[in-house]
């Protein structure tokens, strides 16, 4: 039996107290962390009149599932949902391709000045994105050298997302642990650098790719402040920015439909979490130990 602060013996002797505390904890956690989800989902089902009455009803007295369909179509939640999915998938793809390639080169190909470049990339961990908000905004509205204006295009999200030092750090650390011997043996057999990455490094790196992918998707889905700045045209906005706009004009937006919109915005990442909770929670715990 696992030994913690309180001995197993003690817990066995105080069974009743133990189960009282346990049930109390479960109740509190359910109320604090699960009930808000119930409230969001069921309130959206209620008749608009029922939602605004002074005493809220715990169980909906009216049942309007069509509110969800209305939100999807009339509030165009569907449109913004697809926008967000498109942005998130693109951010993920660019992060993985660009950061894996860079981390592989830094870890296994070790070019001259590799250390300097890695250092410069990791230095950006010191910069909170928020402190760069204004100059980064000016940069995407007129990209130096290329002269592109990326405002209102997906590139304004995808390209800055790829400059992710945390990914580079985590991926490089993982690649560092892959023995050079395996790569050398394959190289003798005539495999090129890309072949080594594709057929040896990547298959061995599934766990770290899974974790970086999940965090990339979750991060992109939740993103708010940056999309608020660079996606100004309402039709290209992501779900978070659109919901913020609808929430601020609550007189115009039917409230139960707005709540249904919140539910739609929550579903994808909650599903991802419930499916991959082991990866996410253990990835987080491992990250905290290594710093």
């Amino acid at each position: 039996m696992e030994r913690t602060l309180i001995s197993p013996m003690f817990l066995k002797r105080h069974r009743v107290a133990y189960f009282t505390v346990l049930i109390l904890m479960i109740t509190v956690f359910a109320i604090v962390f699960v009930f808000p989800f119930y409230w969001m989902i069921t309130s959206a089902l209620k008749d608009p009149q029922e939602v605004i009455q002074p005493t809220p009803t715990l169980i909906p007295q009216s049942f309007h599932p069509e509110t969800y369909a209305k939100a999807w179509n009339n509030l165009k939640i569907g449109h913004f949902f697809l926008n967000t999915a498109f942005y998130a998938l693109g951010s993920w793809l660019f992060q993985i391709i660009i950061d894996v390639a860079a981390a592989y080169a830094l870890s296994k190909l070790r070019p001259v000045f590799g250390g300097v470049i890695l250092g410069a990339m990791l230095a950006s961990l010191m910069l909170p994105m928020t402190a760069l908000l204004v100059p980064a905004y000016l940069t995407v509205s007129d990209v130096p050298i290329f002269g592109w204006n990326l405002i209102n295009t997906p590139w304004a999200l995808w390209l800055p997302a790829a400059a992710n030092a945390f990914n580079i750090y985590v991926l490089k650390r993982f690649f560092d642990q892959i023995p050079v011997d395996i790569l050398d043996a394959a190289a003798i057999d005539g495999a090129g650098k890309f072949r080594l990455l594709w057929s040896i490094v990547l298959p061995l790196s599934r766990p770290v790719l899974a974790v970086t992918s999940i965090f990339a998707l979750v991060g992109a889905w939740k993103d708010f402040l940056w999309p608020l700045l660079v996606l100004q045209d309402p039709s290209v906005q992501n779900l978070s920015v659109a919901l913020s706009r609808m929430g601020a004009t609550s007189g115009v937006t039917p409230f139960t439909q707005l709540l249904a919109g919140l539910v739609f915005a929550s579903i994808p990442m909650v599903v991802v979490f419930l499916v991959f909770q082991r990866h996410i929670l253990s990835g987080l715990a491992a990250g905290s130990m290594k710093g």
Partner: protein
Amino acid sequence: MQRVGVQQVKDNLTAYGFMAAGIAVFALFSWYPLIRGIILSFQQVNFVTDPYWVGMENYQTIFEDPLFWTAWKNTLKFTGLALLLGYAVPFFLAVLINEVRHAKGFFRVTVYLPLMLPPIVVVILWQYFYDPGNGLFNTVLRGLHLPESQWHQSSSTAMLSLVLIATWSNMGGALIMYLAALQNIPGELYEAAELEGASVWQRLRHVTIPHMRFILLVLLLLQIVATMQVFIEPYQLTGTTNPDTITVMVLIFRYAFTINHDFGMAAAMSVLLFVILGIFTALYLRVTRERE
């Protein structure tokens, strides 16, 4: 010799080929904006003529803006309250969860769920809870015959209301990390302490907390850095003009994009925020580096 040299050049070119895209995105969207941000804070930008140098003028302007001091005061208040509410709670919850022998998965999953919600969803949902008329919170208070609150709409409770939201939604991350650290404490230490007659509190103080010192420090620094950048709660709930809740990030947003349309002022404010956060981030990196 000659062949080795050629091969080396080729290998380096290949390596830089793999890194080219990475270097390009970092150069364009991280390194260049940093330098430009610093330069910008000494410039006037009006989009009609080229930016021109104004020396310390932007800094002077923001120092003279009463909102500047309000924003810092509010941000410190938010960070302080968030530490008070949000720092110790996940630690003690983690200790508690680590002690129970059942439903651990349930606790871990439920506490982390809010982190999966887009922040805007959390804020709008809580806005609904806080509704003074028919919100959930006031209904419960009414049911318990307690005085009702105006929550974010009253200047005395506005900041606290924002902190509650941030605490609820972010507690899971810290709790999961504490749990992982607690599981690394060897059980024999507790056994030995108990044999020597140490009470539960003494064991907590002399075994648990010393072993958690590193993670407690790391999360303290991370929480300070994160909460000082608070934006979405005041932006959505109380707006960019409310002096009770205007924070540094909200003021930067206001300077640049809503009221002043002055990128120089916003850049000056960003540089100050960056310097302050940089101190905490540098401490964080030092602490974690030492650990390795």
